[in-house]
């Protein structure tokens, strides 16, 4: 395994925070008080604050060691399907921390925050142009939050026309958050199966779309990594019955500059700035999930909106049909800065090229691995390809064993057991920022693991062996939850 990045190294032990330290230590530079202490009613005051006291070096080592037990895009290839783990540019991190941004208070008069408002205004315009939509809100904090905003808008729009529809169509290749987002708005999800090609057929939508259905939530490209070829006709059917077409744009990395979402009948879609637009995921956020809409839906966007008037930027609440507010202020501004920097660094040509290369990488992996893993839908894919463990069943190993062994080779596993339409799914999204050499190494690692499955399956069953811990007992964690120490 010498040529793979995976190797054993010195992994340092580190206790829990409260197993360290001593009462009376403090790692914070406390300002001296320059005012007299004021009296306070004792009834209000706590006896103690129950937090461990640590010194500076203890805190620094604690978190440095913890970080070494983690794997990120900067550590190695992270082909987690539908998560678009591309390189996160460092200059964007630096620029997001400029004091004029990081110390900006959200409730100052707008004359004092013009630079911030200009950046947000411009980013909205850029995202509208990239997607082919007319108006954008940056307020949603993540993809699922964008979905919720979208569902609230569908609800509000239909209510304004005197409609209260109870159902929403959800394909089996939609993202996992979609049903829960729809349910929060009182929509009952109506599942629809993709066809033998892995996409939605026009007939299947025509059969179920009716006047009690608010619309459809379609992920395009879908979670099989396939483009919904019939989307235009499907949108037409939904529109004819008074419904709206929502697109989960989490997979937008495949289609920048190649598909005009407005043109193909999408009424509203969210983007994940922390996927397509290179902002880091932070181990689970903060993200940003802007919602892009067609002109007719603009009045319903969350407030405040950024408007430009006489060359100045303002925050306006003057949108009486707005759904309201998704979070206290205006969204995850620090994340928006990084996405703005990314788009301005790339320009139109490079963004389109990024999509083309993301699709190239995925198709290359699909071709190179289709004799190694079972490929349920053997057709050109977009930015990700989905395999399964069907061919490995005879060796008595399953998807979980395969990907745990990949860790030992130094690769983060792909997304597994999703989408649900493929039993034992292995969903690989390389992104455009991986080199051919790295991808070839990943392919070789997959082949080597499959070979091991035939010859020494215990290597897979016992994997991972090079990580901080071996396989963890997740069932016990759920049976007897221990969430605090």
């Amino acid at each position, binding site marked *: 395994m010498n040529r793979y990045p995976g190797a054993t190294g010195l992994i340092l032990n580190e206790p829990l925070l409260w197993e360290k330290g001593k009462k009376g230590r*403090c*790692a*914070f530079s406390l300002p001296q008080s*320059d005012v007299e*202490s004021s009296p306070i009613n004792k009834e*209000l005051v*706590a006896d103690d*604050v129950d*937090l461990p006291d*640590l010194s500076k070096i203890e805190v620094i080592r604690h978190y440095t060691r*913890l970080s070494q037990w983690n794997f*990120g*895009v*900067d*550590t190695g290839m992270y082909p987690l399907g539908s998560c678009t783990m591309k390189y996160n540019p460092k200059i964007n991190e630096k620029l997001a921390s*400029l004091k004029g*941004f990081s110390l*900006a208070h*959200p*409730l100052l008069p707008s004359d*004092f*925050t013009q630079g*911030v408002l200009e*950046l947000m205004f411009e980013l909205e315009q850029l995202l509208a142009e990239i997607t082919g939509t007319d108006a954008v809100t940056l307020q949603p904090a993540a993809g*699922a939050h964008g979905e919720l905003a979208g569902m609230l808008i569908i*609800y509000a729009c239909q209510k304004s026309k005197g409609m209260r529809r109870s159902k929403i169509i959800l394909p089996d290749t939609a993202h996992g*958050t979609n049903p*829960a987002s729809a349910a929060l708005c009182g929509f009952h999800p109506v599942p629809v199966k993709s066809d033998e090609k892995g996409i939605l057929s026009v007939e299947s939508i025509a059969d179920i779309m009716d006047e009690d259905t608010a619309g459809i939530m379609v992920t395009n490209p879908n979670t099989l990594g*396939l483009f919904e070829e019939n989307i235009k006709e499907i949108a037409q059917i939904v529109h004819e019955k008074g419904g709206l077409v929502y697109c989960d744009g989490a997979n937008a990395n495949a289609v*920048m500059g190649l*598909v005009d979402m407005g043109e193909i009948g999408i009424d509203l879609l969210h983007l994940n700035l922390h996927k397509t637009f*290179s902002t*880091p*995921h*932070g*181990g*689970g956020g*903060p993200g940003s999930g802007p919602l892009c809409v067609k002109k007719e839906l603009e009045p319903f966007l969350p407030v405040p909106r950024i408007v430009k008037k006489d060359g100045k930027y303002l925050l306006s609440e003057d949108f009486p049909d707005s*759904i*309201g*507010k998704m*979070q*206290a202020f205006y969204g995850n501004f*620090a994340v928006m800065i990084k996405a703005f*920097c990314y788009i*301005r*660094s790339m*320009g*139109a040509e*490079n963004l389109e090229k990024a999509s*083309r290369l993301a699709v*190239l990488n995925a198709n290359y992996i699909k071709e190179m691995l289709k004799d190694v893993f079972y490929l349920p839908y053997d057709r050109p894919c977009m930015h990700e390809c989905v395999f399964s463990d069907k061919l490995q069943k005879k060796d008595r190993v399953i998807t979980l064993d395969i990907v745990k062994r990949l*860790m030992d080779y130094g690769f983060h596993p792909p997304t597994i057991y999703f989408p649900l339409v493929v039993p034992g799914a292995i969903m690989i999204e390389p992104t455009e920022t991986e080199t*051919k050499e790295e991808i070839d190494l990943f392919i070789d690692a997959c082949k080597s693991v499959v070979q091991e499955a035939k010859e020494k399956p215990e290597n897979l069953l016992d994997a991972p062996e090079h990580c901080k*811990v071996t396989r963890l007992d*997740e069932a016990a964690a*759920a049976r007897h939850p221990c*969430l*605090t*120490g």
Partner: protein
Amino acid sequence: MRYLPHTIEDISSMLNVIGTKNLDDLFSIIIGDCRRKTGMDLPLPLTEWELERLMGNLAGSTAVSPEYRMFIGAGRYEHHIPASLSYLLGRSEFVTAYTPYQPEMSQGTLQAIYEYQTLISRFLGMETANASHYDGAAALAESLLMAVRITRKKRVALSALIHPLYRRVVQTYFEPTGYEIITFPYLENGKTDLSPLEKIDDIACVAVQSPNFFGCIEDLKRAAEKTHEKKALFVTCFTEPIAYGLLKNPGIQGADIVSGEGQSLGIPMSFGGPGLGILAGRTKHIRSMPGRLVGKTKDRNGKRGFVLTLAAREQHIRREKATSNICTNNSLCALTAAIYMATLGGSGMQKLARLNYDKSEYLKNELKKAGIKTTFDSPTYNEFVVKFPCGFEKTYNHLLEKKIIAGLPLARFYPELAGHSLLCVTETKTKNDMDEFVRKVKS
């Protein structure tokens, strides 16, 4: 382009394997009328150096400290952030990782979040906390939905002194649900009027913020007792967590669910986002709780380790019956808060909280001495409401010219308080800053 590594040879050899001639053929499945007809109309790409200049100009046009002295809070607070914190948060193993779906490769994030859950629970006097929400407002909205789920009652009551923007978010989340929101008014002393509760039955929860939007410290214990008499859950909320370094925490006073904003715990204001939505509760309600949870377990060798757990509540398993749709949360902000709490420790947190209190009391007293009235006479923490003499706007604008931000004008949120301002003082303000503020207000 530096982020796109493919050489021409790479592309042609890969296309060769795929069996297509050019990159465009890969998109043959996107048939004619779905293909974009014209290229994107975007500004030309910038080099790193051009980008730095552009961003420097944009950032340079905002009013920030130390050039401006900010006496404004109202949900975002200026606190000192230790350099070590930003340094640790630059560890790209934390920053460039995804949600920890593969625990063996994510023990750093997982242990850190387990520790965060623990520190937050201890700090707030609660039994358990989740891995974070988007911000305080979203956490409050999710807390109320959680109370509805637990009690199966469809009515919630909110204090009018919960941050007005939080209440807007709650309204937005509740709009299609059909659940009813009742608002309790406030008293002359700047605290919530709980008397309407006596006439209400069949209520899921009562939610009170403390310190409330006016900075006044609410009697949470009494509010909890009154709420529990109605067999409802008591939800508390906060925007300034540092307060609990000094004040009795909500858990000890009977809160069933605590939600709030953790921005003060080491997170820059960043024009309002990202923040940190904190949600803590009782163990018995854990299966109704929204959001990610990290739990302790063992590996095959009996070694301690951590995993995402109780996923059966979550959207990807439970689909439309999930306790929430949340997927990406604000993990890195939770990590920030944990490092901040570890940096201060219990002793440091107590001192810092007291310092904040003493400073804000100093300004309050000096303003009183100068003849400026505080609007409410209840004890406050860090923030308080004053009425400026001789026309609010004049004073506010006069101070702006002197690069002093004289709080938040309240008329926008409470029309009856036109001419009143919500002032805020944290440890970042010196005695000199405050003395000058008072002098300028007098002049």
